[in-house]
């Protein structure tokens, strides 16, 4: 074989490798999926699910033992009774042992799409949204499908289980309410745009609150599906995250950084503030006393409900697209475009550990 042919082959292989790097089937750009338990932090990011020591960030183990280029995972796992349930971008959903992540109890392989959001637990079932336009209910013991709901678009938000109902955010401009035992659609509530975040349920008023890319916040009664109120103004931007309830105020952010508080019963605007930059991750409740707003550029501020202003601010060295997790006296912030996947802070804003596989 002459040199030119060899050169040509090398070039072709290189071109293939470069293109594959750009767009291989299982690769998607997403944020780390983080779940915090009493002792551990689980981080699903790229080719691994990591189990970390909650207090010092030390890596304890990871799944799989040998990372594969064909495997990627971004959905936060759910942990219950010593088992972890999580899905990946290779169309597999697994139950593994919390003790040994590589001890797989079962794998559900019936889906033809990616798992991109945290599943929800409902008694004996684990409810899993999938990009193949289905929501699956899988038996926790056997790993077999109990029911499946067929939708029109990919499901990418964590479902919310309330009693015998499952509330699912759909991309087709609807919120779906399903029967938790059968998967039958009980009713749907129309929104003005795509809903990408899980809804918020308030047990005191039996109300569901959800914002959409249609620049609208909506409230409806779960029992009846009746819309209580809608909120939307001309200068309201798209809403990407779940709202919070603090001191009888419904607080949410829009993409432009506006922080808005409404009366949850009437939808009447109480006050407005501004985070000073783009906000995708929304507001996160802290200790029922205040809330955090994390801007896309990494600026994270704490607001106490009384002051309605920033009490402290830290700059996280990365971009924030998903909600920080507040658990006990720690704040866990998943980031992208940074040296680490996750940064931690105390609830007073003092930096703690960070984690990246290389360190």
């Amino acid at each position: 074989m002459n040199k030119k042919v060899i050169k040509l082959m090398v070039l072709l292989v290189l071109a293939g490798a470069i293109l594959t790097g750009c767009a291989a089937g299982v690769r998607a750009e997403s944020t780390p999926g983080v779940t915090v338990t009493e002792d551990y932090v689980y981080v699903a990011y790229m080719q691994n699910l990591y189990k970390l020591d909650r207090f010092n960030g030390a890596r304890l183990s990871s799944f799989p033992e040998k990372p594969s280029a064909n495997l990627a995972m971004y959905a936060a796992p759910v942990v219950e009774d010593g088992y972890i349930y999580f899905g990946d971008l290779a169309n597999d959903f697994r139950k593994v042992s919390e003790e040994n992540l590589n001890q797989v109890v079962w794998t559900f392989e019936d889906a033809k799409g990616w798992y991109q959001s945290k599943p929800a637990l409902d008694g004996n079932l684990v409810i899993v949204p999938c990009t193949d336009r289905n929501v699956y209910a899988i038996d926790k013991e056997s790993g077999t499908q109990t029911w499946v709901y067929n939708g029109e678009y990919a499901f990418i938000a964590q479902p919310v289980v309330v009693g015998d109902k499952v509330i699912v955010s759909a991309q087709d401009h609807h919120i779906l309410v399903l029967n938790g035992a059968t998967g039958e659609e009980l009713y749907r509530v129309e929104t003005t745009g795509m809903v990408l975040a899980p809804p918020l349920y308030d047990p005191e008023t039996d109300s569901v609150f959800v914002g959409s890319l249609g620049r609208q916040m909506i409230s409806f009664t779960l029992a009846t599906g009746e819309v209580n109120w809608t909120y939307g103004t001309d200068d309201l931007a798209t809403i990407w995250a779940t709202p919070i309830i603090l001191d009888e105020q419904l607080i949410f952010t829009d993409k432009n950084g506006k922080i808005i508080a409404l009366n949850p019963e009437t939808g009447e605007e109480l006050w407005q503030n501004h985070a000073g930059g783009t906000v995708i991750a929304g507001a996160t409740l802290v200790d029922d006393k205040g809330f955090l707003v994390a801007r896309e550029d990494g600026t994270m501020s704490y607001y106490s409900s009384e002051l309605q202003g920033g009490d402290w601010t830290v700059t996280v060295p990365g971009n924030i697209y998903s909600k920080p997790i507040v658990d006990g006296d720690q704040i866990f912030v998943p980031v992208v475009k940074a040296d680490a996947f996750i940064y931690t802070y105390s609830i007073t804003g003092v930096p703690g550990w960070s984690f990246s596989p290389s360190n």
Partner: protein
Amino acid sequence: MWETIIVQPFTNLLLLITMLVKNFGIAIILFTLLIKLITYPLTSKQLKSSMAMQDLQNDPKYKKMMEKYKGDREKTAEIQMKVYKEKGVNPFGSCLPTLIQLPIIIGLYQSIMRVMASTPLELVKLERIVYPFLDVNKILPIQNHFLWMDLGQPERLWIGNIGIPVLAILVLITTYIQSKIMQPPTQSNDQGAAMSNSMMMMMPVMMGWMAYQFSAGLALYFLASNIATVVQYAAMGRADWAKIFPWVESKEQPKTAAVIEDDDEDEEEIAEEHPQPVKTVKPSARSLAKRQRPKRKK
């Protein structure tokens, strides 16, 4: 810069077509054809240039001249340049359009990937580059389902538990057809032929493999692009279907005789202007006899 000039307009155009036809699969096909149409002058120029070059390479007299001055690079280059000039062939004519098309192809590829956003982070990025006159809320979500395919996933046609990569197979076949009908006629023993043959085997396999691995949307683009190129080539009357279908009559080459007329005088003229420094290649007895033979008319 790259984003603003290439990716953003392409993405918005793709979204606009999707909004009009309400089907992302059809939008990808239309978008590919539209881009092919826009770049047609470049492609046509490139094809014509490479055809002229092919014809020249196959011309027996040109070959003879090249053979004659084989050892003298300077002389060979000079004769080449002279012939190129006379016949109006630009040796870089096929490279320049390719270079210009390259950013378009990469931009097209990137915009298809952008529109197929499937995670919130990708949707944030998509929303950011949509022009204000396109209401993102009306466009999103994009229906990724087309025929049996999920355009955001690698394509498989599921029959029971067996997933058949139909699109990857079609991409492999059309890439092979494209390479085969566009393959320049070369002699079986030269380097060009060896390269061309290995490329003809490697390209379809590589494209098929990429279509197998990548999302169906991109594989659909590969397929539409391959078919459009074959049609374009056929429309220019250059497709030799006999290479694919043996029962079709071959349009065997060429017009080559017309490319270089009797250039013996020119050849001599060049040789006189630039006498061979060390060795003069003498024509062999066989080639002399060949020269003296009367020319056969086809």
